[in-house]
């Protein structure tokens, strides 16, 4: 495996994108930074701009209003980047699947922009912080 991928595995810079979520996943993501689940040990850092990010933590069900902006953010993230669909909503619409204001699950929205985007799913509503960490680790191991 190229040294680039090896380095990417050890230092993941994460950018959090909420496309219409109920905040549980957002709070669990911030919980990752707090002392109990501190993710800085794995080199995961929450950055504030998609330019610096390697992984997009997408939460929320992808409402019509938020869908275009999600595609915009994905285009501006430096590739190679992984899209993490956090929670049941981002994974497949969750309990809001099929509602009238929902523009389809997040992976469909991202695939419209880049068909071969790397998408990882972390199920759970909200996924436990431990599940999120193991999701990120497994996804990186699989690249």
């Amino acid at each position, binding site marked *: 495996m190229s040294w*680039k991928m090896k380095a990417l595995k*050890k230092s993941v810079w994460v950018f959090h994108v909420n496309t219409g979520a109920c905040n549980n996943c957002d709070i669990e993501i911030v919980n990752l930074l707090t002392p109990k689940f501190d993710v800085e040990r794995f*080199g995961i850092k929450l950055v504030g*701009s998609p*330019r610096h990010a390697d992984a997009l933590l997408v939460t929320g069900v992808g409402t019509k209003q938020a869908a275009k902006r999600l595609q915009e953010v994905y285009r501006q993230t*430096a*590739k190679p980047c992984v899209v993490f669909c956090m929670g049941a909503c981002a994974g497949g619409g969750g309990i809001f699947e099929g509602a009238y204001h929902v523009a389809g699950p997040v992976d469909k929205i991202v695939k419209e922009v880049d068909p071969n985007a790397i998408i990882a799913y972390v199920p759970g509503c909200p996924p436990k912080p431990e599940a999120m960490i193991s999701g990120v680790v497994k996804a990186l191991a699989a690249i």
Partner: protein
Amino acid sequence: MSVLANVLFWIAVVPGTIILGLIASWIVRKVSALVQWRVGPPVLQPVYDVAKLMGKEILVPECAHRAVFMFAPLAGLAGVLLLSIMLWRITVAQSAFMGDIVVAIYLMVLPSLALILGSSASGSPHATMGTSREMKLVMSYELPLVLAFIVVVIKAGGSLSLADIAQSTPVWSISGMVAFLVALLCVQAKLGYVPFDMAEAETELGGGVIMEYSGALLAAWKVMHTTMLVALPLFMVMVFLGGFGVGSAGAVAAGAGKYVLVVVLVILIKNTNPRVRIDQAMKFFWVYCSIALILAIALATIGGYYGIGWL
């Protein structure tokens, strides 16, 4: 030393400084994490960060000025590396030349200018806000920094060469100590650490000066930042704390101890202060620091004239 060892040493200086910088930046992150009861990153984390960034794709904004945008980080990095090579030459090869302190001050400004150049070239209105803050910051701390070095030059009897300045170890005198403290705060601002990280702070919070950079260019900025973490304390040690002895192992250990002392001071300031507002910082540097330094200069001249060392 044989010629071969000498050549090998000078080849190893540049990568050596960069690696030392990465380790120093790891120390800073680890201590900040421990303050918040967190575990903090592993030792090789900065190396991984830089390596990953090299592998990433470089995005240049549409409206950015392409050439300047690409060139700015490299210029900043070159400036810092040049400064560190010069400092190593002075300490290891004892070849200080007249006026080397002026060259050092000039080289220290280069990274900040590169930062301003790069972010204004990136063409995003958001980054321009960061640029204006960076410019104000640079203007505010350059004046006290130069005044501090004037004090040091007076203490060393008017010679501009770092070797003589190192001999006179100005920090043991009152004016020297004042100059050292002010210079330390200026270094804090130059490194862009709290409480003077108005421009850089936005990088963690998302907006900010190097927001538009990605991939290898962002790696260049990060390496420049970490190498500054080596060069500036090194320079402070040489100017104020009596430089590095190279002869015996003891001298090298003493030099390293002083270097670590400066880094710890920087970390301490970083972790105990909330961020300061930009106009406040300017007022602090121009008013308080300058007055203190003018007094220090007066003391130094009196001391020099009457030959009292500790004044």
